């Protein structure tokens, strides 16, 4: 049980770290500027579209890859190097994926009427459709059955926003905690603290709470700014959306603390943080869906807490689900936090 003295010490370190953060103006400004610039950049300048390949879902398919011999897909379209194909088992699954921008076009592979679905809010969906139609009717004689997906469409910016915020949170949590702790150890600031009754658990808790506070503060400010510009649509509960980022932030901070538990080499820590953060960013669907990627790649993505944070956040923001639909992701994030925080506390060294 935590006593008053322990709380007082955690509070003292929490306050000290916050003051450091807010007074380091360059770092402070960058924490806001970075996500904001990316959102504005991709949201406005490029219209939110960043991918050069187009994903087409084909249904019904039994396996993990499309068997073209069972489909009516024209040869020209199959050979288009700008298009990759994703095997989808049912129409419902396909509609779900195109709705949430995981694929750009959905085609009924058995249909003799060339039945397909597009997402009207997606420029990529429009381009893919044009390529499909061009392959179908070079002489303008083939009829098509064009369908637009039903319901309110998820804009790309609404799909992108959680990803950008999660990515920023990941960098801020890993570097803002891990790198800082190693720097403090190297310059002797941690050694000075060891000469006090402060325990490793108290120190790490204070660092974690401080970083979470700063992350959520940054998140709120950037969200307000982005909402004013893009009128972001959160289908589900705002509180639940906040919770997913809170739990995600905790799990990422705990990984940062684990990586910084020992050592005084900023270069090594920098390498280790890069080694973790870059694969996490690319495999957690921040920028693009892993739909159609090899199974082993998708399995690896499950290891990363960023994947679960993003999955849960997008479910709440884009699909409007409740807590029961994201409890698995929340549970995994809590588990990650417990494991890495325990490891960090037991391995933590104040000195070299």
């Amino acid at each position: 049980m935590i006593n008053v003295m322990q709380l007082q010490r955690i509070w003292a370190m929490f306050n000290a770290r916050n003051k450091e953060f807010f007074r380091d103006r360059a770092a402070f400004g960058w924490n806001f500027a970075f996500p904001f610039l990316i959102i504005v950049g991709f949201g406005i300048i490029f219209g939110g579209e960043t991918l050069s390949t187009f994903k087409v879902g084909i249904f019904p398919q039994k396996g993990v890859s499309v068997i073209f011999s069972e489909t009516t897909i024209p040869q020209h379209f199959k050979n288009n190097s700008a298009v990759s194909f994703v095997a989808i088992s049912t129409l419902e699954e396909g509609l779900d994926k195109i709705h949430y921008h995981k694929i750009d076009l959905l085609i009924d592979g058995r249909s003799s009427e060339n039945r397909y679905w597009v997402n009207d809010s997606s420029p990529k969906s429009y381009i893919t459709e044009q390529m499909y139609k061009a392959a179908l009717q070079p002489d303008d004689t083939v009829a098509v059955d064009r369908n637009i997906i039903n319901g309110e469409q998820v804009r790309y910016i609404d799909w992108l926003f959680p990803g950008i915020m999660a990515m920023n949170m990941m960098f801020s949590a890993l570097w803002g905690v891990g790198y800082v702790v190693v720097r403090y150890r190297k310059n002797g600031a941690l050694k000075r603290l060891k000469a006090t009754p402060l325990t490793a658990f108290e120190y790490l808790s204070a660092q974690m709470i401080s970083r979470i506070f700063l992350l959520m503060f940054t998140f709120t400010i950037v969200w307000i700014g982005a909402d004013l510009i893009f009128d972001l649509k959160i289908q589900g509960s705002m509180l639940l959306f906040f919770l997913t980022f809170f739990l995600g932030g905790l799990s990422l901070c705990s990984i940062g603390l684990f990586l910084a538990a020992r050592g005084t080499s900023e270069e090594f820590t920098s390498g280790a943080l890069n080694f973790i953060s870059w694969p996490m960013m690319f495999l957690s669907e921040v920028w693009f869906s892993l739909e159609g990627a090899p199974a082993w790649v998708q399995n690896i993505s499950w290891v990363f807490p960023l994947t679960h944070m993003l999955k849960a956040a997008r479910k709440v923001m884009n699909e409007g689900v409740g807590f029961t639909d994201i409890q698995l992701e929340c549970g995994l994030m809590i588990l990650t936090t417990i494991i890495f925080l325990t490891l960090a506390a037991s391995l933590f060294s104040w000195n070299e």
Partner: protein
Amino acid sequence: MIDIPAYNKKMSILSVQNLRKKYGNSVAVEDISFSVRQGTCYGLLGPNGAGKTTTMEVVEDIIPATSGTILYKGRARDISFREEIGIQFQHTSLLNFLSVKETLHCYQKLFKHPEELDRLVARCNLDSILHKRNNQLSGGQQQRLMLALALVNKPELVFLDEPSTGLDPQSRRYLWEIVEDIKGNGKTIVMTTHSMEEAEFLCDTIAIVDQGCIIAEGSPAQLITTYCKTNTITLPLSVIENKLPALDIDFSLHGNSVAVRSRNVEETLRILMAANIELKEMVVDSPDLEDVFLYLTGRKLRD
């Protein structure tokens, strides 16, 4: 079950027995034993690399010992040890963006019984820099802040590791006054230094450390009288040159001067005066801790 007697002030507040510290195959502290009485200043004097700082950090519980026993108030160091000691490290750092006042506040909150801020500020002369940020302090100001942090919990036992290193003479003198004041308040001080002047001025007991061992221990006066009984009387060669063969003195020539070694200065002066030697330009040097170290190791402290 071992019956440990209750601590009283006549006992040693700190007792170190057969302390040894190794880093891999390298031995930093070979075998060190000492004890410190309450209300005194105990100094570890020795050249750089002698093992003073390692000894201090093991005793402070900053790094673990390879072997040996350390007792604080007659018992193994426990959770209360950190509440009752203050440490000024030789090399350490603070949070750059906090002010001096905020730093003191932060450290006050880490202890159960902190010192009042005003007393701390007055004692360490921090008034003029209270609102300065830590990264804007000069070397002397940083040392004073570090000393204040070492005193923030009203410690019973204060460890000072090379407290005046890098300070100008005025700042050093001021720091010594603060340390004297701490001692005057009944606190116990354990310090390391490679300055014999500092050791002589501040320490009641000095342990001379060399190559991870204590080679001599005692008060400055005891060490000098035990190991260096000889004074040196220096005279210009011109005033004594012709009479040297006839004098019963131990001397050596150094360019244009003669160094006369004497265990009894009064007796030697009587011999010189009897020989009608001009003593106007005479210089008498008493031995100091530097001489003690030279006598014990064959090297100078600063080598």
